[in-house]
């Protein structure tokens, strides 16, 4: 059927409407972004005091509540300094999107970039290009390869796993039957929390009777724990790589009526999750996995003021047990940032081995 006059004009109207919509969306986003950009851009080497700075924050995903917490901590720390503006970009766990975000920050000439990369290799080059363009880059939590970045701030999952192992050995008196519920074993945190734990229990008579990959998910942890409960009549302790996993295991044990006879240990210690579980008597212990949001802003301020900062800052952890949870837990590993007092140009603090 040949296109009639009405067909053609409908087509034309649709195209015009679509272009108008896209133009409107772009102009709204543009107005939003230019409101965040500072007006003057003097060179970063000799900034006058109380100048307004823009920090670009590239987060790999906001699906993990822990990352939502990281962004919230950065926002809270930045709010204490009215001369700081932080622009948040969420890559929705897409590496290519995150590359694009870094490149966008570079072309927008932000004063500093904070990035929590999804993966090391694909983000190494964009970060290096940013540094080469004169923008300092703080890498948070997950690393990039090489050394083309200004500062890496992260916690040490191996340390946390090892401390968990040592605490479990102490609590069980050196022997016992333990179930290990692992996080996604293709991710570095899962691997580190696993190897650290095995190092921590080495030399004791702790026996890992059952281990399964629950992929950080609570329903999966519950399923695996049900299998473990069906298979083993005697379980002393469950070590889960994260608090939702430990909670799922506890729910499975509760349904079987065995939750009082088993101890549960998790990691992450988010205030509304892991710490709550310890307070409520669900978990016996949880280890904090700090997000480093506050430390990132503190380090950013130092960099923007022209101070020298260490190449690597390893965050310490805290142990929360039923005995110390009301006091806010007790610190472990390298000292927390507020207890550390680095002088500019001094040697970096001793790394946890």
């Amino acid at each position, binding site marked *: 059927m040949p296109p009639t006059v009405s067909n053609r004009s409908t087509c034309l109207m649709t195209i015009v409407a679509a272009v108008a919509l896209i133009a409107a969306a772009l102009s709204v986003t543009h107005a939003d972004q230019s409101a965040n950009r500072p007006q003057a851009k003097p060179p970063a080497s000799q900034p006058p005091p109380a100048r307004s700075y823009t920090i670009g924050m590239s987060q790999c995903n*906001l*699906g993990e*509540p822990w990352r*939502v917490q990281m962004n919230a901590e950065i926002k809270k720390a930045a709010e204490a300094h009215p001369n700081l503006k932080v622009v948040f970009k969420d890559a929705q766990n897409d590496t290519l999107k995150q590359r694009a975000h870094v490149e966008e920050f570079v072309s927008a000439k932000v004063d500093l970039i904070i990035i929590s990369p999804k993966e090391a290799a694909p983000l190494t080059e964009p970060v290096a290009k940013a540094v080469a363009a004169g923008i300092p880059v703080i890498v948070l939590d997950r690393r990039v390869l090489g050394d083309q970045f200004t500062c890496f701030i992260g916690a040490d999952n191996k340390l946390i796993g090892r401390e968990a192992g040592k605490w479990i050995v102490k609590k069980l008196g050196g022997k016992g039957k333990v179930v290990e519920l692992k996080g996604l*074993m293709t991710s570095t945190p899962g691997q580190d929390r696993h190897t650290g734990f095995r190092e921590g229990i080495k030399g004791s008579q702790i026996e890992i009777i*059952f*281990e*399964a*990959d629950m*992929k950080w998910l*609570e*329903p999966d942890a*519950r*399923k*695996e724990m*049900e*299998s473990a*409960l*069906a*298979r*083993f009549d005697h379980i002393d302790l469950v070590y889960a790589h994260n608090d939702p996993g430990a*909670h*799922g295991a506890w*729910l499975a044990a509760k*349904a*079987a009526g065995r939750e009082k006879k088993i101890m549960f240990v998790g990691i992450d210690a988010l*205030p*509304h*999750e892991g710490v*709550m579980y310890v*307070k*409520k008597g669900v978990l016996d212990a949880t280890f904090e996995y700090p997000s480093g949001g506050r430390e990132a802003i503190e380090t950013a301020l130092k960099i923007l003021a022209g101070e020298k900062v260490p190449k690597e800052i390893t965050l310490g952890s805290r142990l929360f047990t039923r005995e110390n949870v009301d006091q806010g837990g007790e610190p472990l590993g390298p000292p927390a940032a507020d207890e550390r007092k680095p002088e500019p140009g001094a040697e970096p603090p001793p790394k946890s081995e």
Partner: protein
Amino acid sequence: MTFSPESRPRFAPAELIRQPAFTALLALVLVFVLGLLFSGDGAFYKWGTHRDALRQASVYGILACGMTVVIISAGIDLSVGSVLALVAVCFSLFGIHWQWPAYAAIPLCLLIGAACGVVSGGLAARFGIQPFVVTLAMMVFARGLAKTVSGGMKVSTAIRTADGDYSYVEVPDIFRAIDSRLLDGNLSVVSLIFLVCVVLSWLCLARLRWGRYLYAIGGNEPAARLSGVPVAAMKMLAYGLCGLFAAVAGICQAAQEQQGDPEAGVGYELNAIAIVVIGGTSLMGGRGGIGLTLLGTLIIGYIEKILSINAVPEASRLMLTGAIIVAAVLVQRRKA
């Protein structure tokens, strides 16, 4: 050739073997034998293992009930996982944070799920958009809505107060009730809910006029339309029902986790489709039934359980599950 739910299978052996229910039952028996052989230190012989296998398959099974209805009408619904998350978040918000009674929270949650389904079905029916595309869009939209409603965090018994601290509340009774067991600890309430969903979908598909219309639409839509079947209304009903079941699944998920997780249900739609396909319902539409879906749920549930009690490593599990799905579908293949 359409399969009318009214025709009774003849009981001659040759006819019996060709019934799709027979092949699904055979697959289930084979999986069972696998479990008896690889019993995980005797765990397969305990009743608790079977009760738990049914419990863990129930949420998928509830989704599969709704998916069966949609697939029979020659459609597909990719949004069920996201609608599950949205309703889980809403149910937790209503029940834990706002302390609503169950008779207020549950109907509203069911309405939310059904509304998502009706919107998908309406767009597919009225504007002729492919169900795949419409429900894909709803999948993304509902996920975003779930994250907006929950503020990106899990809606749990820790409520954030104005000064940034947390106050803790108790898990509501309805959550505990849904996550409990009946019959002296031998049947999970969630499993019972799943079985009720199976019966309801069977009533809809096999005993009501609507069900017959859905088979007709799935078998030959132009012919159905010309015969006077209200195609658009039926499609909206089918997707609305699917959304309703996704809401039921979301309520069960929230009760079992004692929280509303906006990230829940990722990938669940694929599990639901796999269950329907393994049961023997054709993706082309017009053929199949809810009994097949029940068998498919049991097959998938038992496969997962057997792999779990034997502590099979994750990578092997994924490969084995993929291979078993292909094998089950090959067995189901009908020769023209």
